[in-house]
């Protein structure tokens, strides 16, 4: 009896994932626990291990998006007959490819949208045939789609059933990320042909030139990765929050000295702590003392957390990720350094697991290493605050009535005003400043 391999839920709130690559081919022997495929969720790309041993009999979902729980493969004995099994598996889950539809893009909504657009476009047309043709399916689509969504692995294909377009036109539209349903066809019976897509593409801001560009320039079109899409969506969401910023400048000489002492005392095998690591530890202590800042704003309620899980913003080739150092208030600086080093290296290799990215209660973004003096970070919702850390550098400072050159750093907190008031933010920042200037107070 073959085992159905289902798309796993890697974390809370995960509805779907994209199978990026199969690490095994049909017919390969698979041991239990062996990596089977790479799964891209909106947070992370992770290798999924086989939870059964045997022969990979059938890959049901070769590549692309699928919902959690969809049967993606069958593992069993080498000579096992799986065709019936596959039919059954697909029947049970709904068509695997139907399930592969992006979650944010429900078929009914999509169908209604494109049909509306079509009928609008057709209003001015002298003959009524086309709008009518387009309208007919719009009435049937929402109901039909709810029961059995049409197989459509990509949004572009969602309109296929209703829009007349040549295969070439569809391909060009797909390659250029144009919605074929939004185009007007000039071919026989209103069919969208390649030239129509070329024209639309000419006009589109994002589209590349239809013909070979004669200006010699070229536009690179970058498809959004799953991670990038998430960044775009979440940070756009973040703008909905009413935020305010507060800045403070601290004397960093004690912070630097503490770090230097730690480095001097470093033993074989320990990770050298960075300024950020010390700062993470100090901020964690401050957060423990200011639970109003160590909070999430969820569904109109403030969730204040006893534990302090600090997310650190890490730039990777695939985009920004924010792995989390859990219980940072209970870790030593060296402990934080070790965890941070592991997280950052795995982040850069794209090997973070979903668990590495979950449960953050606060975020620190440090651009000091780029020489940025100070900046404003965008909130990382649902967290209610994020700290932007600038560079430590020698700067003129007034000390006891005289001008001195001191190493200073400027920190700016962005607060969600729905959860935090100015005074709460200010008190937190005051604590951070005093801890930076006297790290021993964090003990």
């Amino acid at each position, binding site marked *: 009896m073959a085992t159905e391999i289902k798309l796993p839920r890697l974390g809370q709130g995960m509805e779907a994932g994209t199978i990026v690559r199969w690490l095994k081919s049909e017919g390969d022997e698979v041991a239990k626990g062996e990596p089977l495929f790479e799964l891209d969720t909106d947070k992370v790309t992770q290798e999924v291990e086989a939870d059964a041993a045997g022969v990979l009999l059938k890959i049901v979902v070769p590549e692309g998006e699928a919902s959690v729980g969809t049967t993606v493969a069958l593992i069993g004995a080498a000579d096992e007959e799986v065709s019936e099994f596959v039919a059954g598996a697909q029947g049970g889950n709904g068509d695997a490819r139907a399930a592969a539809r992006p979650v944010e893009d429900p078929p009914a909504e999509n169908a209604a949208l494109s049909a509306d657009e079509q009928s609008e476009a057709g209003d001015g047309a002298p003959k009524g045939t086309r709008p009518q043709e387009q309208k007919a399916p719009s009435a049937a689509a929402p109901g039909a789609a709810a029961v059995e969504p049409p197989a459509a692995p990509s949004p572009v294909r969602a309109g296929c059933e209703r829009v007349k377009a*040549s*295969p070439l*036109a569809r*391909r060009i539209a797909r390659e250029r990320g144009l919605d074929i349903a939004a185009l007007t066809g000039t*071919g*026989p019976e209103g069919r969208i042909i390649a030239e129509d897509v070329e024209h639309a593409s000419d006009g589109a801001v994002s589209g590349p030139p239809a013909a070979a560009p004669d200006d010699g320039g070229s536009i690179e079109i970058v498809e959004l990765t799953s991670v990038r899409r998430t960044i775009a969506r979440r940070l756009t969401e973040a703008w909905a929050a009413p935020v305010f910023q507060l800045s403070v400048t601290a004397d960093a000489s004690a912070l630097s000295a503490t770090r230097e002492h730690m480095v001097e005392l470093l033993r074989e095998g320990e990770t050298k702590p960075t300024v950020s690591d010390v700062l993470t530890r100090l901020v964690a202590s401050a957060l423990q003392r200011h639970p109003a800042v160590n909070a999430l704003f969820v569904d109109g309620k403030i969730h204040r957390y006893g534990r302090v899980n600090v997310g650190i913003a890490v730039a990777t080739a695939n985009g920004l990720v924010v792995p989390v150092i859990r219980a940072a208030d209970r870790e030593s600086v060296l402990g934080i350094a070790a965890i941070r080093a592991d997280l950052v290296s795995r982040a850069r290799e794209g090997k973070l697991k979903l668990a590495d990215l979950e449960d953050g209660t606060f975020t620190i973004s440090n651009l000091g290493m780029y020489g940025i003096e100070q900046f404003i970070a965008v909130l990382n919702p649902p967290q209610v605050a994020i700290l932007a850390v600038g560079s430590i550098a020698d700067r003129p400072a007034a000390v006891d009535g005289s001008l001195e050159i001191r190493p200073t750093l400027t920190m700016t907190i962005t607060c969600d005003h729905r959860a935090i008031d100015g005074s709460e933010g200010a008190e937190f920042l005051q604590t951070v400043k005093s801890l930076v200037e006297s790290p021993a107070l964090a003990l």
Partner: protein
Amino acid sequence: MPELTYREAVRDALSRALREDDNVFLMGEDIAEMGGSMAVTQGLLDEFGPKRIRNTPISEMAIVGSGIGAAIQGMRPVVEIMYEDFLTLSMEQLVNQAAKHRTMSGGQVKVPLTIRTQGGAGWSPGAQHAQQLEAWFVHVPGLKVVFASTPEDVRGLLWSAIYDDNPVVFFEHRTLYPLKGEVPEELEPIPLGKARIHRAGEDVTVVATGRLVHDALQAAETAEGEGISVEVVDPRTLLPLDEETIVASVKKTNRCVTAHEAVVRGGFGAELAAVIQHAAFDWLDAPIERVGSKFAPLPFAPVMEQYVVPQVEDVLDAIRRTVARA
């Protein structure tokens, strides 16, 4: 380069093979003294004698059957079926014997037999002397099928057919026999399975066979005047088919018309359309148009015949449909 008619080009390939190779001989109805009903084999009896230019009784089954026997015994016979309509009478020998021996014997037996035949309308031959049945044979594994459209091609392809170790059904078109064309001084064999691009174009590919190659070229001229750039490709060998050349052409032009004189339904154009849509689906910007005869037994009356059989204008209309706008 010398100029030969299509008829002379066929004769030239035959006489060169007969001259160079004692294993080559011809059989057919009235091919000796009379020189064949289409005068293709005229003069060959004088040069090669009655042992090698052999008249046969009126039995297509016997003609093909004895050809198979001779081929199995090591000869390279070229047999003539006077009209391809009469291939029907030799089907058992062709389909069940010639096509099967090589594989059924595990390769111990080869059948290097060439079956020359001709057909085609345009001269009021009526319903039983002008059919274009090439598609039937493309359906039979074990055969090769050639349909040449120019003097140069017919000479080079016939040579390759004679020297192919498989049975080759070699179609000639009745109305092309007087067609003149330049041919190389020396006979250059044309490999089976290689298409020929007669004319390069950008907007639509016409894949044409036999007489329709010339109609397609004429239609392409007219289309050019309308701003439509037409590529004309002749597969020349229908089996095996040069899919690579045809698909590459359609991927370039994004549109395709198939054209042959045989009836459209179940014609070779259907096979072409299937191959093209599968290999170049994402490159097609219009439905593939098929041009061929209307589905009717060929009428005798010239005006009716002209109505049933595709003309230049039919190819042109199909070309225009592929580039049509609403």
